[in-house]
């Protein structure tokens, strides 16, 4: 995947670029807002990682100008600005995701993956049934079955499974689940995600030879078919 990284801090840029390249992405780097805007317009990129406080042109303006010019490339804000209202500002300016520094590399990469796939298949949201191997999720009737057998899920479990299925084959972090499934912006001190996931896995995978939901240690979960 081609990533455009607009970041003025040398250390952060190297940290991100190295991590992204190790995961098989190619990284192009801009050091200020104007350069970032120019490179983004030259494009094409699969995702743009954009700092907010940049020399020459701030990140919010870069995002706005890009959207005005008709670019649809997903933008992930990566910034120290984590105050109240900052995230909303970022999303309103045209950002697709907002990650506050300090961050874990795994978190950033999971979000980058999530963004690029999302932009490739926007049609997925219109599907009525999500299918992964023998697992079927009926989004309209809100029922789940595996190998023809009906599985009863609690509402929160259903929401988690739906999100995992929409991101099939990609790592989903705990924070992504908390932010996107529950629409919460909290840093929980209890294992709220793990507790739900263990119940969900017990219902979805127990008694089957293939385990669809897998834990990625220290990062999150992945729902993977064959």
């Amino acid at each position, binding site marked *: 995947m081609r990533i455009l990284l607009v970041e003025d801090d040398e250390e952060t840029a190297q940290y991100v670029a190295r991590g992204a390249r190790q995961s098989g992405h190619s990284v192009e780097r801009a050091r200020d807002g104007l350069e970032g805007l120019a490179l983004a317009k030259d494009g094409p990129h699969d995702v743009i990682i954009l700092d907010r406080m940049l020399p020459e042109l701030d990140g919010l303006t870069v995002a706005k100008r890009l959207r005005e010019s008709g670019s649809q490339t997903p933008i992930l804000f990566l910034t120290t600005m*984590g*105050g*109240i*209202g900052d995230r*909303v500002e970022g999303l309103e300016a045209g950002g697709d995701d907002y990650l506050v520094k*300090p961050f874990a590399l795994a978190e950033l990469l999971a979000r980058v993956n999530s963004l690029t796939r999302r932009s490739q298949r926007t049609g997925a949201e219109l599907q009525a049934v999500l299918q992964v191997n023998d697992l079927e999720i009926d989004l309209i009737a809100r029922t789940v079955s595996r190998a023809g057998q009906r599985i009863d899920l*609690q*509402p*929160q479990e259903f929401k988690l499974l739906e999100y995992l299925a929409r991101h099939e084959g990609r790592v989903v972090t705990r924070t992504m689940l908390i932010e996107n499934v*529950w629409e*919460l*912006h*909290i*840093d*929980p*001190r*209890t*294992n*709220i995600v*793990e*507790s*739900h996931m*263990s*119940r969900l896995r017990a219902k979805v995978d127990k008694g089957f030879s293939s385990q669809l939901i897998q834990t990625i240690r220290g990062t999150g979960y992945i729902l993977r078919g064959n």
Partner: protein
Amino acid sequence: MEIRLVRSESFRLTAIFAAMLIGAIAVLGGGLYLIVDQAFRNEILLNAREDLAAIRKGYQAEGLSEAVEVVNQRLAKPTPSDVVVLETTSGRKIAGNVPAVAVTTGAKHVHLAAGQRRPHEAFGAGEMIGPGLYAFAGQDLYVLHETEEQAIHVIGWILAITLAMAIGGGLLLSRSFLRRTDAITRTCRAIMDGHLSWRIPKAGEGDELARLATVINSMLDRINDLMESNRQITNDIAHDLRTPLTRLRHRLELARAEAATTDDYAATIDGAIADTENILSTFSALLRIGQIEAGAGQKSFQRVDMGAVVRNLVEIYRPAAEDRNHLLCASTVADAEMLGDKELLSQMIVNLIENAILHTPPGTRIDVALEAERQAIAFTVSDNGPGVPAGERQNIFRRFYRLEHSRSSPGSGLGLSLVGAIAAIHRGRIEVADNDPGLRMTVIFPAQRDFPSTS
């Protein structure tokens, strides 16, 4: 000093007031003068026409000699201001107490020649009495003039006294006003010079300057509190972050000295990362509290369906509570909407639920309730755990404060400070009570039935 007095606002106001008063007195005096003058002249004319009628009647009945007789009788009565004269149309005086006057009929002023008394003016009426015979009757106006002079005198005195009182009162007022504003100015200067504990001395009871002084004093108290809390934060950071930083440093030093295998190094690095996470989350919690206390978020208040938020959070937290052998239930959750920041209100509820889960032993029952009444919306988290001793209850909202037995459980000691800050910007108050057994924490928000159209 004198110039300052005259320039002061209270003096200016007094001067304006005095000018208005003087104007009013002048208008009143002038009006009165005109009315009295008119009445006096009407009276003169009335009497004059009576006199003239009597003279005419005498003349028509018995001729000129009787008319002269009437005039003489009329003048025999001692009223010194009466003026009557009977004369021929050719201007020859026949009878009367003044020289002949011009032969014109109707109401008129007549100048009396000097030498009689003083130069005088009479007012009255003249009429033809018979062929070639004319009479004038009226009053010497000196009485009126004297009365008028006296009245002008009195009004003049009244004006002078009013003016003197206004100026004197104005000076007195502005001196006392200046004395009190000087006290405020002095206090402000002193505070600017660093004497932060100075306050405006109390003077006067309940008037606007006293109120102003009270408000300024409470403002200074509030600023002092904020600065105090700021200093407290700085101290807290210095103390409470030193511990985890020291621990991090020890961990790294120990690994440097003793680690032998890559597994040892990996374990140390994992620990160091965890320590760093803790320190960072403490920082961001402090930052957030600071932002909330500064009023951030209030501009983005919207309608929040508190019932839905509470139900949702209880569903989300129930499994985690069960895994720790706690029973989390929501007994009553009313449908209640309020104006607020959904993200912050969720954070507040989460902190209270997590506190109950983390600081109570397994087997504890935690009950979450949302009650809506006419005046208030109350969110309660209660448990039947060990509770908090009554003496410590007011301390738990202090930053970094941790009860002795919970020092070992995770958390920065900032959770309840955050709850307090979030409740405060939503005009909520927190009640901490004994649940007998256990702890009962209630956040009470004023109910808003009339939502502004922000949604």
